[in-house]
């Protein structure tokens, strides 16, 4: 196993990955510290100050109710990143389980993979709006829908790695020593599929942040009262003629989050996948 220091040094060998990780860290700190760093109450309505452009008082301007855009973006990061993180945890848990089952037990492989193929034949956003339509629009259901959308991706990656790991001598040795199948799967195989899952998880985080915003924009996501970056853009698009900052700043937050996650994911992939390292 790599030491943590060595892990970080290798990961950040490319400057751009370090920049991505720092942006991500800042976004996470901002989300966690929202109540302390937010300049205004994100829901405080001040009609006299509506649709003000960016200024020294309201750095990112104010919206149609006079609410401070910066404060709403800061609070919005909690919902947007929170939804993304929950989607990652759920899809990684389900996808890893399905992937190991499919990869380890030949009999389950066919049925599980065909269902996964079927889910993957439906475009992400289309499957997500369909699921939200069926389940009902709420933050929990958006998480559930996106987790269902991204589980197949994790499962495919885990299955592929499991197929390789299953044939390795140490697994055979464990089996010969009488180690139970359950233990082989939950310890030996699981440990060896962590790298590809970690890479996949980072990308899914980025896609989930983008997809949540897309769903909110289409009106099939989180209810508009909850400030997320997506609902902020969706709510303000009719004012974009007079107050373009209402669209620009939440969008930039989405871009920063997705970009930093993809940079980190890219760095992790380069580091953990020796096959790709030569093409760097």
């Amino acid at each position, binding site marked *: 196993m790599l030491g943590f220091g060595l892990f970080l040094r290798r990961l950040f060998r490319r400057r*751009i990955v370090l920049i991505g990780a720092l942006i991500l860290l800042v976004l996470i700190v901002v989300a966690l510290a929202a109540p302390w760093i937010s300049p205004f109450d994100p829901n405080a309505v001040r009609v006299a100050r509506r649709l003000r452009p960016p200024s020294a008082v309201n750095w990112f301007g104010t919206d149609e109710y006079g609410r401070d855009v910066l404060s709403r973006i800061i609070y919005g990061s909690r919902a947007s990143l929170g939804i993304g993180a929950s989607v990652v945890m759920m899809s990684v848990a389900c996808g890893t389980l399905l992937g190991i089952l499919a990869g380890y037990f030949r009999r389950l492989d066919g049925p599980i993979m*065909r*269902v996964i*193929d*079927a*889910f993957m*034949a*439906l*475009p*992400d*956003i*289309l*499957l997500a*709006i*369909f*699921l*939200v*339509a*069926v*389940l*009902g629009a709420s933050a929990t259901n958006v998480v559930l829908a996106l987790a269902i959308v991204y589980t197949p991706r994790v499962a495919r990656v885990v299955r592929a790695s499991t197929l390789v790991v299953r044939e390795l001598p140490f697994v055979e040795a464990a089996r010969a020593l009488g180690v139970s199948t359950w233990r082989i799967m939950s310890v030996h195989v699981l440990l060896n599929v962590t790298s590809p899952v970690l890479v996949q998880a980072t990308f899914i985080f*980025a896609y989930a942040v*983008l997809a949540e*915003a*897309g769903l909110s*924009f*289409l*009106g*099939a996501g989180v209810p508009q009262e909850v400030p997320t970056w*997506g609902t902020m*853009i969706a709510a303000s*698009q009719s004012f*974009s*003629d007079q107050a*373009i900052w209402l*669209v*620009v700043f939440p*969008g930039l937050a*989405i*871009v920063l989050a*997705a*970009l930093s996650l*993809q*940079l980190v994911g*890219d760095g992790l992939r380069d580091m953990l996948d020796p096959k790709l390292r*030569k*093409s760097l």
Partner: protein
Amino acid sequence: MASRLAKRLGGLVIVMFIVAAIVFFLTRLAPGDPAALMLGDQATADDIARLRTTYGLDRPLFIQFGLWLAEVVKGNLGHSIFLQRPVTQALLERAEPTFFLALFALAFATLIGIPCGIASAVWRGRLVDQILSAIAMLSASIPSFWLGLLFIQFFAVRLGWLPVAGYGDPGAPLAERLAHLILPATVLGIVNSALIVRFTRASMLDVLGEDFIRTARAKGISERRVVLRHAFGNALVPIVTVVGLTGALLIGGAIVTETVFGLPGIGNLIVSSVLRRDYPVIQGALIVVAGIYVIINIAVDLIYALVDPRVRT
């Protein structure tokens, strides 16, 4: 080749059957009586009961699925009470903008993606490579609806160069309709070009490291010819795959883009159907979209075999 095709078509039937089952049973998870939903708020209890019998909604779920699937196989995707027409007809009426949008966006993504990927690979590690790779990653991190809104503000509202939204008046000449697609296709193309850049770069790098490239260079063939003919020709297989995949991804991307630009395409129809819970349309559209996706995948696989004799076995 024939056995490959037969095997792939067999896989297609199984996957489409599972897609149909997912779509059917998930729809039934939705709260509320499907008959009541189909008829809307004004329906009386008698109307609902009659519709339940007509559509077999009073029978066991698996029999309902069988009956529905038999109709789908015959090409009958159901009837939308809201639109007052068969789902197939509704989808066909909306197909033109979606088709041209996806086509133009794919052309745009390919035209910028392949040259950027080649340049990135040729000048690997240099500033050009770093800038192009950074731009590719950035373009994959931009929400398409946001870029669309910004483009509308800038190119249509401020500069007035292009139409703001819509697809021209009904019966407008094709050229005018297509002018409405320039902005949306550009947005969709930019957002989807990243994958093509990355794959072109990776497969060009793979080929450029091969021995025959060194031989070609040693023979004194110009670098331009080595890169564009010898290397690119051999890197084509993964590139064809990724272009095909991007084409399939565009179907999903079109849903959001059509909504931003108010294009009366299939994506727009799906979103409005979701918002008004018009389940026959949603089910039909999902089946059609999944079908297109699976067929594109098979087509890519076959083109793969045509382009590269090594895969033909």
